[in-house]
């Protein structure tokens, strides 16, 4: 048995083996902690965007879209954000488990903590409006935008189905306003008798549920404020 220590020392000497420097191990550990923090951060941002998308979705307009409620829910879920939240939560767990201390904690505690951090951080970001900004920016990117169902252009640019959205360009009087829609066309909207709880002013962005009554003519029944961003309106003629 004494032989073994000699053999080991001999091999260490012959192969010029030296202990790896401490910074390599510290660096590796820091890398996993950093990756954990980044994963949790991205998870929180994605959660805030998901929250913004969920709260700004009009869950009650399924009849106008010719959908049943279940169908409407499935077609409106922001899958991209759900996938990002799940993916980065898993990454956070993986990175945490690979830190030096990670093995000490039960998986259920690690999973719960990671999810709670994402939810709390994500809700805070959502309340500051950051979630909406992120959702808007991503929705505008060509490869990602189409992956997000319930995009305003898909949902609200259907005048023939009673859904119209855009920017008020002129309030003619208490009964008629002019609106530039999501593809840059101008509509005369009659809103006498329509339900709304917001001031209708030029530059205001709104969503209208109602009925198309003629060529670029629309009768509003309900007018809603367009919360947050995600309303891309092409430039039209100025008035």
């Amino acid at each position, binding site marked *: 048995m004494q032989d*073994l*220590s000699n053999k080991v*020392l001999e091999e*260490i000497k012959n192969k010029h083996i030296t*202990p790896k420097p401490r910074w390599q191990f510290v660096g590796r550990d820091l890398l996993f902690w950093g990756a954990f923090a980044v994963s949790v951060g991205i998870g929180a941002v994605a959660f805030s965007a998901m929250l913004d998308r969920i709260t700004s979705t009009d869950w009650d307009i399924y009849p106008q879209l010719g959908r049943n409620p279940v169908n409407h829910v499935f077609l409106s879920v922001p899958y991209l954000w759900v996938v990002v939240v799940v993916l980065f939560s898993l990454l956070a767990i993986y990175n945490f488990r690979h830190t030096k201390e990670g093995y000490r904690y*039960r998986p259920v505690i690690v999973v719960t903590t990671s999810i709670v951090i994402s939810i709390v951080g994500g809700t805070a970001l959502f309340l500051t409006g950051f979630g909406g900004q992120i959702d808007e920016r991503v929705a505008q990117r060509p490869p990602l935008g189409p992956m997000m169902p319930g995009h305003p252009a898909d949902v609200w640019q259907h005048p023939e189905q009673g859904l119209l959205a855009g920017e008020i360009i002129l309030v003619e009087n208490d009964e008629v306003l002019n609106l530039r829609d999501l593809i840059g066309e101008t509509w005369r909207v009659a809103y006498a008798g329509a339900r709304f709880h917001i001031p209708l002013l030029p530059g205001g962005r709104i969503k209208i549920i109602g009925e198309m009554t003629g060529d670029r003519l629309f009768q509003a029944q309900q007018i809603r404020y367009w919360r947050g961003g995600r309303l891309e309106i092409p430039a039209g003629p100025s008035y």
Partner: protein
Amino acid sequence: MAKFNTYQQKTDEELVSLSLKNKDAFALLVNRYQAKLARYIRHLSNFDEEEAADILQEVFIKAYLNLNDFDKRLKFSAWIYRITHNQVISQYRRLKVRPQAVVAVDDESIANKFTDGVDLARDLDLKYSTAAVRAGLQKLPYKYQEVLVLRYLEEKSYEEISAILRKPVATVGTLISRAKKELQQLINKDHI
């Protein structure tokens, strides 16, 4: 020689620090652990003596290479057992065979350790029970074998097993409890 004698008094953890400056201090760690780790490899695998010796040598080389990774808040023994455990598993992966422990239960006292708290049939005589325990252990899944080996043959604490297997302490407790229950079922199935 005088230096070597001074080193004899040092703790494992102190020897790790000294080994970074002087290779001879590492030789003392090798001497302290080679017999224990050789036995652990034997319990944890069915490798022949030559293979086991190669693994052991590789374990100490790896330990030396990674000395700076040793966390002084942990026991050195847990750290070197972890390297040994990983080395055995790596060897199995290299050979592309499933790990198989050979849990040597040679006498009644060891058998009693495994069955302590397990409600085995009271009328089994000790000799019979030793053979039954040995047979039952061989049939256990590897994850249970390795945890029982560490607890009852290597006499490691839950904390140490947690560090060796990199599992939470609570999970180690659950594994040990499940392992003993399954062992009881296997023994009952075979002998009652």
